């Protein structure tokens, strides 16, 4: 391995963790971070949660203090965008015209919100939430608004709905599918979340599509749905999923396809280029097919995996995926990838708002969704890391099952 620089494109969660992990692993080569945003690397999860109420201030989002980069000898080129990779010359060109040579390149370009394609989508007051700048715009918009429309019943939209209700807005969620978070969680959990949101006074409209937004003086006012209904909206939050940022990789002829395609060591089709975080599609021992995951856990663990590889400790990426969301005061945590399950067993009490849905496929535990039951979540993470060691659906279904005492429970 050479001694040239490691260039990391992204300066988001994955990029920062990779730079920090390289230094923590004793890597002494130059490390250069290139980020299109001007803000220092920050945490995104609070943007759809406490940040919107003003309880968290921007400086509390920074992942490291400003002194970190100088102290760790990491060059951070912020507010500049990588626009071209010349693989023959091992060089990245930035929007500013700057060219930087790499020995190893790590792509951590993240993802961007999918855009709404209805008339009126570009009216003022229509916000997609991805960056700190978006969150700031939304925070201000919510302060003056009476009616919020959330398009898409996914994580981010539902988190915003919950915060906005707390701020006293009238909130409507429109979801085109029959279930909230339908692609990622069990029916039990999505039904529970719909109940929680409705109990807080949010209007949850399922099987309904937005067809147009209408405004006054350039600002959104009304939404039209496919059943002809009209919904008042001073602010519209678009939460209809994200698309991986693959343009840079595609331009450099790296293999892409809903993500930058990497192997289990997170290498792209070019051995000196890696891809991590939201933009990477990788083979996982926890799923049948290669996946792309949008979570802090994945960004952070993949960053560490690549940093280890670059310091001579190559290991495949096998981390157990997990995710959390906070809605309506409930702590919701997911361990494993549960979407392809064929059987679920509920442990605990949905009525009391404390339960876990254990999800199985072909008799094997694939993951657990927990609501205010973090012990189930944490122990599932350990079990999955060890190959889900024999926990059967019937074990969970047994009265009095408590995963904290499994497998030592009397039968």
């Amino acid at each position, binding site marked *: 391995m050479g001694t040239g620089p490691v260039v990391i494109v992204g300066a988001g969660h994955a990029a920062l963790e990779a730079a920090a992990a390289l230094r923590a692993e004793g890597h002494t080569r130059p490390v250069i971070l290139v980020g299109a945003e001007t803000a220092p690397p920050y945490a995104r*999860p609070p943007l759809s949660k406490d940040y919107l109420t003003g309880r968290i201030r921007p400086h509390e989002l920074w*992942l490291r203090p400003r002194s*970190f980069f100088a102290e760790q000898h990491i060059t951070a080129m912020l507010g500049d965008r990588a626009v071209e990779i010349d693989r023959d010359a091992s060089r990245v060109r930035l929007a500013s015209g700057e060219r930087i040579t790499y020995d190893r390149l790590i792509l951590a370009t993240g993802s961007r919100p999918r855009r709404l394609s209805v008339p009126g989508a570009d009216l003022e007051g229509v916000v997609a939430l991805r960056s700190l700048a978006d969150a700031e715009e939304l925070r201000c918009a919510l302060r003056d608004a009476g009616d919020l429309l959330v398009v898409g019943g996914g994580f981010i939209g539902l988190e915003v709905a919950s915060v906005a209700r707390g701020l006293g807005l009238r909130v409507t969620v429109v979801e085109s599918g029959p279930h909230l978070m339908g692609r990622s969680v069990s029916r039990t959990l999505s039904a529970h979340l719909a109940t929680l949101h409705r109990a807080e006074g949010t209007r949850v409209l399922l099987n309904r599509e937005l067809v147009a937004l209408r405004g006054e003086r350039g600002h959104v006012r009304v939404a039209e749905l496919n059943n002809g209904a009209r919904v008042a909206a001073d602010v519209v939050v678009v939460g209809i999923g994200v698309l991986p940022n693959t343009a840079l990789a595609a331009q450099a002829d790296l293999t892409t396809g809903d993500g930058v395609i990497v192997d289990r060591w997170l290498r792209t089709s070019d051995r000196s280029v890696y891809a991590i975080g939201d933009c990477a599609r990788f083979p996982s021992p926890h799923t049948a097919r290669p996946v792309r995951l949008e979570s*802090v856990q994945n960004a952070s663990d993949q960053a560490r995996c690549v940093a280890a590889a670059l310091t001579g400790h190559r290991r495949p990426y096998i981390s157990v995926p997990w995710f*959390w969301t906070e809605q309506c005061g409930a702590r919701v945590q997911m361990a494993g990838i549960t979407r392809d399950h064929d059987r679920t067993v509920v442990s605990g009490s949905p009525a009391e708002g404390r339960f876990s849905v254990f999800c199985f496929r072909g008799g094997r535990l694939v993951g657990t969704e927990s609501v205010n*039951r973090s012990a189930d*979540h944490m122990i599932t993470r350990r079990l999955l890391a060890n190959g889900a060691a024999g926990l059967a659906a019937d074990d969970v279904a047994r009265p009095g099952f408590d995963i904290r005492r499994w497998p030592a429970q009397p039968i």
Partner: protein
Amino acid sequence: MAKITYQHPDGTETVVEVAAPNTVMRGAKLNNIEGIVAQCGGSAQCGTCHVYIDEGNTLPLPEMHEAEDDVLCGTAAERRPTSRLSCQLPVSEAIDGLIVHLPTTQI
């Protein structure tokens, strides 16, 4: 301000001054102390900010709430009676001199 000592698994120590209203977790992040991962950023969801409070501690620490207790059930390094989530330990003058021991692994 409080002086906090982070003792690494190899016995070496990092001593830093941390200002209120940070947490013991944030104090580690702000000072680039390896061994605290803090994936969830301090919302008691991830268990990757696990520490052991020094056995001889007499400083007042907040009681453990249920969510913290639950998360500590599955930390990467073994749970001990002295285990806490460092993101749930607010820094104030009352804990000046606190010593925490970092576990061998957080992930």
